[in-house]
């Protein structure tokens, strides 16, 4: 199976994802340039974090209009796995592949730290190696991570089990102080209706090795390897 890491001008977690996919979980991985228009033969498509186009308009807005995005949309419709992390999540919402929008953090500062999250849905290709309700710890690093949808759409997300991760404390309680950016309903990550497109603000690729402070992100990638190769 093959994985693609899409590179937009200003992407900066592209190398980190390549390292995890290629060197740690052993997937055949390639970079794909944002001006390309095809994504054939890829079972997994990754939109990495960073600041595409400097995030100068709204984060992810300009990248969402890149030539490659038609191919990403196409792949998503065909049921391939698509994951957007941080800026990648912002791009997916701007491109309409996931509902909602990501607004500036409530404290208006960039936040770089570790957070706890509760796994709400472990039946996706990205999360089946986690237990439902499991509390995991991952780094975040973003300025615009406040997830927002209107009430109708929120109800939809809740009803369809599309909320995959919620911010919580170490015991799994969603209490205000552990919502780092003011996201609606503590949302840290969501998937599409079909469950094959995931967007999340935390960085699983930054916690796949003990020496970097934790390994709770690794199972996102090993889940994918197991699902996609079977």
């Amino acid at each position, binding site marked *: 199976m093959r994985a693609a890491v899409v590179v937009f001008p200003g992407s900066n977690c592209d190398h980190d994802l390549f390292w995890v996919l290629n060197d740690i979980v052993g997937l055949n991985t390639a970079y794909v340039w944002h001006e390309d228009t095809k994504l054939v033969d890829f079972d997994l498509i990754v939109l990495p974090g960073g600041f595409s186009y400097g995030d100068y308009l709204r984060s992810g807005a300009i990248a969402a209009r890149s030539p490659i995005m038609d191919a990403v949309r196409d792949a998503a419709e065909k049921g391939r796995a698509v994951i957007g992390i941080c800026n990648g999540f912002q791009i997916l919402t701007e491109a309409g592949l996931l509902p*909602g929008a990501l607004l500036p953090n*409530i404290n*208006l500062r960039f936040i770089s730290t570790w957070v706890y999250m509760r796994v709400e849905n472990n039946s996706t290709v990205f999360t089946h190696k986690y237990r439902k309700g499991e509390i995991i710890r991952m780094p975040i690093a973003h300025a615009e991570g406040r997830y927002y949808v*209107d009430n109708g759409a929120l109800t939809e997300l809740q009803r369809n089990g599309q909320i995959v991760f919620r911010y919580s404390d170490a015991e799994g309680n969603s209490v205000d102080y552990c919502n780092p950016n003011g996201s609606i309903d503590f949302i840290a990550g969501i998937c599409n209706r079909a469950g094959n497109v995931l967007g999340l603000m935390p960085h699983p690729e930054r916690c796949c090795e003990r020496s970097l402070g934790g390994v709770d992100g690794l199972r996102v990638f090993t889940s994918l390897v197991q699902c996609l190769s079977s």
Partner: protein
Amino acid sequence: MVKVEIKVYPKKEVLDPVGETIKKALRRLGVDVESVRAGKLFTIEMPEKLSKEELYLEADRMCKELLANPLIEEYEVILCEQQ
């Protein structure tokens, strides 16, 4: 050359911490303000060959396709006087 001015504001129902923060800062400076809304502003120069209607349409397209996100923002297009 013609100029189009585009104003983009966060929708009323979306929390605007920027406006809130500025309101507080202004009050600390002793300015008596009731509310502050913070938005974005673009001045765009376009070729003169377009008619007024075409300009509006084009500006509207820019907003829909890029400059504003309809889920969270509202916008307004203003054609400036030709200079």
